[in-house]
């Protein structure tokens, strides 16, 4: 068991990579130590080892640079390697200073990982190599300056390297060509048909690669951009094909790379960035055992400068719509005899050389009783440069009424860049005859399938309300929040009311007070009943009880034991006026007396007493109200 744990510990230590594992490893050691009382030394060794490992693990990197040779001739390439060694996979690139004596031919990078176990110690290192192939431009002694590598805000510099370049052994111009590379081995030429052009005037740009050697591969490194132009790609090389061409007395393989037709969109002096290609060719084997190698060269074309000019504003016709070039116009009708309601097609063809795709067709004038529809336009380009061809415009006309019609001449203006002036051309006047349709239903027949005859689409009319309000949200208004506040408040009030009510119901006196009226009502009903039954004795007993109960309930005294004196005292204490007290006293005395000598009261008198009772009760009710206030 101990051995197994020890093994596990070693295993953890071996693969320590993250701080978490480190903690785990330490913990493991701790467990092992507990069981391995006798081997404390081992534990200490392991513990120290783990922490030394942890702290030794830093982010340092090692940067070095070297060249494949320090002495070379103008014909050779120099291979500069920058190596970055680190323990982790890092993402950084060296910053290469400007090297004026050399030209970069190619760049590549590689990385390798090495894992070592030395005496059980594990170490991993990653090395990244950046390899630059340089071509010397001049002979002499040069120093490759120290190269900077930035990593985690730290800067690492390599050592400077001295290089000696001897003059060429063969005295041949270098293969990498300068833009104007006539007489060179390989060069790329950009040719434009015009250096100065008007807006909309087509310019043909051709890229041709000339080589004395038979190329085996061509790769595009950088393609030019043509911002500010409408670009038509007319040719793009799909495979390596060539024809022979003699240039400056030398025979070259000529590879046509691509061709564009450009139409400037605004006036500016445009600088078109050169095209860059990487060409590969085979070097002839020098001996029997040499199988030959493939060499790569970087070729760059010349820069193009195109100056585009605005079209003259002077004498610009009103119907000019951007056509630049040389054009002819003609028109024809598909028939000259139609029936009313049938369609007739007017075809206008503008043919010639120029920016055929880029201008608007002549507008069709409005003719009475003829419906027209938006014309159908098609562009047919006949040449490979897409500058020649014709624009075919088909107008569909539907005459509504019979008669002879005349289509006026349609004029079209264009700018002739050769003669630097605007030109106006027009079609011939065309005539056609419309006959009445022999069926009256004919017209309807034409219209019914389409339902309603739609002459054109337009937007819906404006809103004509003459007064508008600034939009605001309802909740931006204080009334909205007032409602919210009131409803919240209502809950609070309801709650307070509820609590208050609960408290009162627990109070007996209050309950009795509340009940007083209800009991009184019942008593009064009994009293009235006794009158209707003509029971005089009962009336006085009930009336007295009614009054006593009412006062007792109202003022929280026991009704049973209430004597006249007590009642008067209570009334006095509660602040009743003297008249009321007197009336109550009189009434009670009267009922007492009447109970024993009731025969002298007739019905009329009893009713008078009843109203007296009502009056007293009313006054007591009011009194209570006043007091509470």
């Amino acid at each position, binding site marked *: 068991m101990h051995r197994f744990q020890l093994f596990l510990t070693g295993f953890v230590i071996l693969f320590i990579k993250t701080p978490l594992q480190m903690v785990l490893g330490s913990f493991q050691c701790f467990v092992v130590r507990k069981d391995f009382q006798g081997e404390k030394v081992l534990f200490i060794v392991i513990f120290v080892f783990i922490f030394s490992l942890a702290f030794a693990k830093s982010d340092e990197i090692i940067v070095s640079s070297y060249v494949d040779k320090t002495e070379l001739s103008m014909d050779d390439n120099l291979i500069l390697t920058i190596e970055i060694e680190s323990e982790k996979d890092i993402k950084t690139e060296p910053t290469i200073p400007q090297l004026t004596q050399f030209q970069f031919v190619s760049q590549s990078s590689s990385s390798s990982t090495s894992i070592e176990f030395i005496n059980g110690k594990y170490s991993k290192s990653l090395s990244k190599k950046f390899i630059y192939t340089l071509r010397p431009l001049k002979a002499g002694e040069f120093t490759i300056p120290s190269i900077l590598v930035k990593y985690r805000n730290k800067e690492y510099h390599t050592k400077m390297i001295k290089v000696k370049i001897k003059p060429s052994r063969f005295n041949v111009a270098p293969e990498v060509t300068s833009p104007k590379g006539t007489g060179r081995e390989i060069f790329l030429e950009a040719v434009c048909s015009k250096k100065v052009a008007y807006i909309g005037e087509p310019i043909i740009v051709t890229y041709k690669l000339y080589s004395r050697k038979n190329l085996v591969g061509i790769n595009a490194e950088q393609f030019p*951009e043509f*911002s500010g132009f409408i670009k038509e790609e007319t040719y793009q090389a799909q495979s390596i094909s060539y024809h022979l061409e003699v240039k400056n007395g030398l025979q070259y393989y000529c590879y046509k790379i691509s061709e564009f037709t450009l139409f400037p*969109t605004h006036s500016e002096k445009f600088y078109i960035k050169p095209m860059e290609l990487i060409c590969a060719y085979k070097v002839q084997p020098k001996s029997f055992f040499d199988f030959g190698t493939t060499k790569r060269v970087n070729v760059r074309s010349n820069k193009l400068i195109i100056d585009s000019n605005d079209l003259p504003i002077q004498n610009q016709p009103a119907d000019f719509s951007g056509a630049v070039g040389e054009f002819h116009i003609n028109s024809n009708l598909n028939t000259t005899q139609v029936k009313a309601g049938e369609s007739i097609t007017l075809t206008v063809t503008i043919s010639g050389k120029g920016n055929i795709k880029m201008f608007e067709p002549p507008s069709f004038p409005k003719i009475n009783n003829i419906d027209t529809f938006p014309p159908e336009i098609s562009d047919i380009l006949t040449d490979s440069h897409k500058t020649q061809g014709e624009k075919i415009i088909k107008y569909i006309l539907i005459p509504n009424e019979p008669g002879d019609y005349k289509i006026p001449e349609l004029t079209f203006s264009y700018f002739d860049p050769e003669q630097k002036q605007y030109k106006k051309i027009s079609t011939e006047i065309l005539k056609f005859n419309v006959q009445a349709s022999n069926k009256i239903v004919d017209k309807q027949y034409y219209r019914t399938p389409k339902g309603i005859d739609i002459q054109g*689409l*337009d*937007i*819906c*009319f*404006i*809103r*004509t*309300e*003459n*007064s*508008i*309000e*600034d*939009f605001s*949200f*309802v*909740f931006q208004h204080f009334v*909205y929040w007032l*409602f*919210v506040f009131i*409803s*919240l408040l*209502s*809950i609070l009030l*309801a*709650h307070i*009311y*509820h609590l208050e009510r609960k408290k009162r119901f627990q109070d007996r006196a209050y309950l009795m007070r509340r009940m007083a009226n209800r009991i009184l009502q019942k008593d009064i009903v009994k009293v009235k009943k006794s009158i209707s039954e003509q029971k005089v004795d009962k009336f006085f007993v009930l009336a007295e009880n009614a009054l006593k109960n009412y006062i007792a309930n109202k003022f929280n005294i026991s009704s049973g034991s209430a004597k006249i004196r007590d009642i008067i005292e209570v009334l006095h204490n509660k602040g009743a006026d003297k008249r009321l007290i007197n009336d109550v006293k009189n009434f009670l005395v009267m009922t007492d007396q009447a109970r024993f000598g009731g025969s002298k009261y007739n019905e009329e008198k009893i009713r008078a007493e009843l109203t007296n009772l009502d009056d007293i009760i009313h006054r007591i009710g009011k009194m209570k109200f006043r007091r509470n206030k």
Partner: protein
Amino acid sequence: MKKVILLIILFFINLQLLAGYDISKANNAYQNQEYEKARDSYGELVKKGIKNFNLFYNLGNIYFKLEEFGLARLFYERAAKFSPLDKDLNFNLELLKSRLKDKEETKETFFSHIFKKIYYLLSINMLAIFVLICFILIMFTIVLVILANKSSTKKVMKVFMVVLSILFMIFLIFTVARLHEFHNKDFAVIINETVFAYSGPSKDFQQVFTIHEGLKVRIEKFDKDWLLIKLQSGNGGWIEKERIKII
């Protein structure tokens, strides 16, 4: 008491009168096809910061007539924030889209159409009022629950309260979502005739696409004078700030 009510009514009438702006002159100018005059007249109100569906809709129409499709689109889109389902507006907007150089595809399934109809059925203000009504009713039921003596009444009121709370939440979510959409400044309209988009915030970067006046785009990022926009197709590019206007 009567006096107080009268005063409150008068106060609201006054408020209504104060809030109104007279646009009869501009409307007449439009009717007489003097679009430029109408544009200036409406434009003054826009400068004042007034927001109103009719104002934006009418201005959209004017720019349409003046063939400034970018600005027409801008004002139609602004109007659409107030009333997204307005028939006239949507007709005009569709017509406008058909005149633009860049075509936009709108994919609308049956369900999304139904959802849109429901979602935009009520205006934000109407939704807010419904929220308020639900709130007041909830409070009212709570008051009744507190005050009711009978336990059966309390039970009924509690059921009402739950139903009203659900409605309240639905209306509230709709209101908040619509408000968020209303204040959204992520969309903009191209107002220059032709705009080149580059792969970075400078003209030195590679040109990636060309867009034209009136196209609605989504703004992704700001960088001083440059904006990263995204097209419907998902293509992104940097354009100059002054070439677009935020809806």
